[in-house]
């Protein structure tokens, strides 16, 4: 396998930064240990240990994305006439009004260094909704252009914490889906494996360089990976979960501590619900934005009539579990969870999705056979 020393990582990122924006994990000052993906510039420290508080989802589904700007302009340019109401009562077209749209800025090429397999795999899971290779299904131009311009360099996990459970759901600490290059940590650096053509190109370019090559051949063996399998009994969860849907008493008891904040969904690398909203500046111009939404928010299913089909945290948590482990697998063929554990680490009320899942599956089985 190819190998790169730890010291040469900065050189590698500098080389990549000459053609793209580089993003890497960094601990934020004065944040009590929060690690986030931040824009990397030469000399910036990189957090090689631990896992980021937020996922890499931001790279393809930004927290807030400007879809386009818009402006209404009077066709004649005669605003005074308009103000005097000389065109009042006529449809816009006849008044000579125009709507001009400013498209969103083109997306920069990005290199994401230092993700974990749980985040990289999540990109693959989201692709099955937003970016099908065969062009079928939902087409999301913003997601597609960001995904196409993103190079993903994953660091495999040789250790984990109590919240990690990537091996539980079609995933693992060195899972390849979603990555372009995988780095395996060894004593003095990383063994490197290309997963995609894009990854191979990076290695090939280095090999072709006459001097200052960063990668070398190595006979070192890949390291032992972290062991993270935690959730048992998930076979048939797609059908078991809906079987206990109506048992609200169960859902209330098992999710009683939930305070219905949005952190689990925001931190989750596979959660992808969004809000589209117009932010105006005056009456005539504004922007249409797409921002993260969360099914844990009370207003998520609030209807204009005032009715809310999911009025309590228990209703909403039930939906979250069913979406991730039943509906999405049924509709998109993938599990909407990669076992990153962020929802567990970040939950202020100490809820653990694994405990809820285990209880739900046991409850569903105990309810009698189908």
């Amino acid at each position: 396998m190819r190998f790169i020393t730890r010291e040469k990582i900065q050189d590698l990122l500098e080389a990549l930064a000459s053609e793209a924006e580089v993003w890497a994990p960094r601990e934020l000052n004065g944040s009590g240990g929060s690690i986030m993906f931040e824009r990397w510039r030469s000399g910036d420290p990189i957090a090689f240990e631990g896992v980021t508080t937020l996922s890499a989802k931001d790279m393809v589904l930004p927290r807030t994305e400007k879809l386009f700007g818009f402006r209404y302009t009077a066709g004649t340019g005669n605003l005074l006439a308009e103000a005097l109401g000389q065109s009042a009562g006529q449809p816009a077209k006849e008044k000579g009004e125009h709507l001009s749209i400013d498209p969103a800025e083109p997306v920069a090429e990005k290199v994401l260094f230092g993700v974990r397999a749980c985040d990289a795999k999540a990109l693959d899971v989201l692709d099955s909704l937003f970016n099908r290779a065969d062009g079928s299904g939902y087409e999301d131009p913003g997601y597609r252009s960001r995904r196409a311009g993103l190079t993903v360099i994953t660091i495999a996990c040789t250790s984990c914490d109590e919240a990690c459970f990537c091996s539980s759901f079609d995933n693992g600490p060195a899972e390849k889906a979603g990555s372009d290059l995988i780095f395996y940590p060894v004593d003095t650096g990383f063994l490197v494996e290309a997963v995609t053509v894009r990854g191979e190109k990076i290695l090939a370019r280095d090999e072709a360089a006459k001097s200052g090559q960063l990668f070398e051949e190595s006979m070192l063996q890949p390291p032992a990976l972290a062991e993270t399998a935690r959730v048992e009994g998930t076979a048939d969860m797609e059908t078991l979960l809906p079987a206990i849907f109506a048992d609200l008493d169960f859902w209330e008891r098992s999710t009683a501590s939930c305070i219905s904040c949005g952190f689990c969904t925001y931190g989750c690398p596979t959660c992808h619900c969004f809000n589209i909203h117009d932010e105006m500046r005056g009456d005539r111009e504004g922007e249409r934005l797409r921002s993260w939404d969360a099914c844990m928010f009370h207003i998520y299913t609030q209807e204009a009539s005032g009715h809310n089909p999911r009025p309590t945290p228990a209703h909403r948590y039930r939906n979250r579990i069913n979406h991730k482990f039943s509906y999405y697998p049924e509709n998109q063929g993938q599990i909407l969870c990669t076992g990153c554990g962020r929802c567990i680490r970040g939950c202020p009320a100490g809820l653990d999705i694994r405990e809820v899942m285990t209880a739900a599956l046991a409850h569903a089985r105990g309810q009698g056979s189908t």
Partner: protein
Amino acid sequence: MISELAKSELSMSDLAAKISEALAGADLVLGWTASGPGGVAAPARFYEQAEAQQAVFDSTCVHNLAVHLPRLKERRVGIVAKPCDARAVNQLIAEREIDPGRVSVIGVECPSMVDVKTIWRRFGYGARIEDDGERLLVNGAEVERGKYTPAKCADCADRVHPAGEQSAAVADVTDETAADERQLRERFNAMSPAERREFWREQYSRCIRCYACREACPMCYCRDVCIMQSDESRWTGGGVNAGDAEMMQLIRVNHLAGRCTGCGECERACPAGIPLMLLMEEQNRVVEELFGHRAGVDPDARPPLLSFNANNDGWRKA
């Protein structure tokens, strides 16, 4: 109503007995069991007297369970409460959000909490935490308690339960002043207004609008119709970006003037590590200075910014 306080050490059997007793007149009791990872306490609900045996109270009981009370209005609820939690209950009563006749408080003396979140950030989620009152051990090795004491506990001015008992065990904590948060507060107090403006701009730029701060706050019981998230009229920008997030945070601070009981749950819940209590506490201090009022001390007090009292001098000083 506020039940009699435990004297000196609260034994677990005392606690179980008090919860059992409360269940005779309540539908459920909010408390803790030792069912969290690494042996820490996790919030729990006791419905039957037999369940009360599993109740615990220790320095990992960091959560303010009063946050659940507004959602449980139609039931009779008991709640195991630290002094800061009990202040939140008082404030909810003062604002007439909950009915004091349907809430019974089991007050516990607080030995000061341990900052579980920071410990797990540094040592990994689920690291074993043991605290015998003298030594604090993480994964079996002793750590410096001052580094892992939440600022709100280190500064707990009234380590006095609202009903008036002093906790001897907590008095020692003020001597351990190495907490990062305390240093941050000192740095903050020394800043000029312009520097503070920059400080908050940078801090709030990390806000992702998850609303964990709001949901963790017992006083933010408007949560389901919160102005910061309103769609029926868009009062604030909805973007998850620095400017809109800052607006949201400042609205929240303003809405809590004279109402924040200093439980620090907002800061504990924040995934981005924003020091929310810095501004809250500054505001609490100003309110106390102007109006002589501290939220949550007296359930019959009328919060100064929710009432008008022509005799109160504070309005002229402001």
